[in-house]
């Protein structure tokens, strides 16, 4: 029987349901700008009907669930694209610093130092007898050595700084896995109690997004709603547990290991992967090239110089121009600095002979690098443009990947984002329903009054 008290009960259920819906609408509106938030929906369902002599009679509404609107597949895709983006971005950042260190094309880069050094010998060839031109050669040689030292020092410093970045990122990973593990435990507990922990899930997803920018992860939800997060096949977080990732240096190379796994990560990706690639391979390669350059410089100049004669009686000979073996140690032979007359210009000991000065200046065209096909200045130019190309490549990869991530984020936003228009429409809908339910209460009240008045 549809008694008046039954109708009152229906009105009560409706009022509760609409209030809950308006509450959720308010929650959505207030979180419209919150990063990582997914809009929530109240799902209404009719309560079980009563079977009466007249058939089934409705008993009102019940809120079956308050859930978030989210598509796990898009999340997976975003995480997959984020690690590549992170890697390209961190490589581009570091290469940009290398570019700044090079300081080319400029009037005071290594390229200009090289030009001035070789030209100083051509100038000396005009006046091998005069000490002013000898001093000029020494000055340009000193500047060149300093350019090498500076470049080597800055690149080495940059190389070392990457390590700080690696350690900071490993600390970030470990913090995030710990937080994800704890959130996961709360989520699993809530789910087992039959509740839908939407906001906690949002939080966990956001942490996973953050983590996937640093390192390539795989994250899969099991049947209990627990997220199993692993890096390189090793589980690092789930259900309150987390395992630290460890970075160590072995044979000068950064090695990343998840937990106590004896196996080092082969594919790291993410911004950490970008850092490791730079530290292990790219920057050492650049530093090595600078050393090769300095070493070729020392060898070619010394070979030509040693055979020549300077001034004096008897003419000074058999001296090296440079001492040292690489970019860190290259310097002008200190003996020459105090005895400019020992700078070799002559092939036979006569002061006017400039054969050796000419030969020294001609070393700029000697093919001595890359197995005898590249000159010293060209080798450096090649290095500079290779770095420029590497930046462009990383930049291109970054912008393409950024485009993909932005597209995917738009998709996610399209599904999960809060629309104020929509929420306002819902608000009106729920408010009207609430108004109507309240009217139902007063109508039933009037009906009851009518009956009471009959008595």
């Amino acid at each position, binding site marked *: 029987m549809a008694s008046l008290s039954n109708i009152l009960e229906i009105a009560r259920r409706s009022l509760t349901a609409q209030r809950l819906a308006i509450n959720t609408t308010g929650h959505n509106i207030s979180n419209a700008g919150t990063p990582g938030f997914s809009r929530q929906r109240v799902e209404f369902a009719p309560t079980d009907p009563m079977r009466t002599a007249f058939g089934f009679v409705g008993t009102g509404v019940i809120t079956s669930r308050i859930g978030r609107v989210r598509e796990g597949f898009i999340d997976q895709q975003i995480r997959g694209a984020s690690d590549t983006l992170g890697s390209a971005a961190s490589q581009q950042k570091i290469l940009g610093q290398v570019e700044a260190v090079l300081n080319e094309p400029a009037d005071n880069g290594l*390229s200009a130092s090289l030009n001035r050094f070789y030209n100083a010998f051509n100038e000396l*060839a005009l006046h091998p007898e005069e000490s002013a031109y000898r001093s000029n050669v020494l000055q340009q040689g000193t500047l060149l050595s300093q350019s090498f030292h500076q470049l080597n020092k800055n690149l080495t410093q940059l190389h070392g700084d990457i390590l700080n970045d690696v350690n900071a990122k490993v600390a970030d990973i470990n913090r995030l896995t710990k937080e994800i593990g704890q959130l996961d435990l709360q989520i699993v507990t809530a789910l087992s109690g039959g509740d839908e922990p939407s906001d906690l899930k949002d939080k966990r997803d956001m942490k996973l997004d953050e983590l996937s920018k640093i390192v390539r992860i795989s994250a899969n939800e099991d049947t209990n709603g627990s997220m199993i997060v692993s890096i390189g096949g090793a589980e690092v977080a789930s259900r309150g547990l987390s395992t630290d990732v460890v970075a160590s240096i072995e044979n000068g190379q950064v090695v990343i290991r998840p937990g106590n796994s004896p196996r080092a990560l082969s594919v790291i990706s993410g911004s950490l992967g970008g850092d490791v690639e730079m530290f292990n391979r790219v920057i050492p390669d650049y530093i090595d090239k600078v050393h090769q350059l300095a070493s070729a410089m020392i060898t070619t100049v010394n070979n030509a110089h040693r055979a020549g004669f300077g001034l004096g009686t008897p003419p000074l000979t058999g001296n090296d121009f440079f001492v040292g073996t690489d970019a860190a140690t290259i310097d002008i032979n200190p003996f020459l600095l105090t005895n400019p007359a020992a700078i070799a210009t002559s092939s036979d000991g006569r002061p006017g002979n400039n054969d050796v000065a000419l030969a020294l200046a001609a070393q700029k065209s000697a093919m001595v690098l890359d197995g005898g096909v590249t000159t010293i200045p060209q080798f450096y130019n090649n290095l500079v443009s290779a770095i420029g190309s590497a930046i462009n490549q990383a930049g291109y990869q970054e912008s393409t990947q950024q485009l993909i991530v932005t597209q995917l984020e738009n998709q996610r936003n399209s599904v999960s984002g809060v629309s104020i228009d929509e929420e306002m429409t819902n608000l009106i809908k729920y408010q009207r329903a609430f108004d109507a339910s309240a009217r139902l209460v007063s109508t039933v009240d009037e009906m009851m009054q009518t009956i009471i008045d009959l008595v």
Partner: protein
Amino acid sequence: MRVTENHLATQYLNNVQNTRQRVADLQSKIASGKRVLKPSDDPRATDGILRFQALLEANEQYQRSNADGQSFLQATSETLGSISDSLLGLKGLLVRANNSANIETLPSFATSADAILGDLVDMANTRFNGKYIFGGTNTLERPFTLDAARTAVTTNPNGIDGVIAYPVGEGITQQSNIPGDEAFQGTTIFDTIIRIRDTMAAGTIPTAADIDEVSAQLDYMLTKAGKAGMFVNTMTANEAFLASQETQLRSLLSIEQDTDVAEAITEMKRGELMLDAALNTMARILPKSLLDFLR
């Protein structure tokens, strides 16, 4: 597709950010006048810029070498010219002496010849910029010495030979001196004069053969002065070539390095226009919502 306010705002911000980035890039290119400020702006052009800069710097150096070489050779040529003048004077002297009527004055002819000898030795020891121009590669040692008795000229025992080559182009050198042994055929010129002077001092009239010998020396000296002059001309031509090469290199460098200002400004105008359009449309759309129309 469901479009939310957040989506609109993000997309708008991204677009505006990209446009602003482009405008800022163009602005720095216009302000600096350079298209390539760092290698990543254009790696290929950077290689060109570095190479052209090196070539330009070397070009300037070669131009200096040419100028230096020219002045040194000019001095050589002028000195050889003066020596020729003195030899011409000596020849005239001998022609006059070659006359039996002048037999009384032969000693004075001998004195004049001796003076010319002194002049020649002095000229052979000419220095330019602190270098003996006829010293060969022994530029710091006096090449010719007339002994106190004025009976013999000796050369620097360390040698007066040796060609000096100046770097005047990429891999090109140019001889920039006439070595003393070449200019004076060792000491032949001085020996000839000493012999004729002594003959005259002894009261013997110089013969036609003596005059011919001096004539031959004069001709020889003129060809050497001509040779120095020819080297000067080579270097002058070379300098002109280097100057035109410099112009070419500068324009090549400019093509690689400099901003095409007209193009950049047009691009920037377009960027500004896009920025205006984006800001304008978003200013209209972004603040609109259902709320505006509820009561």
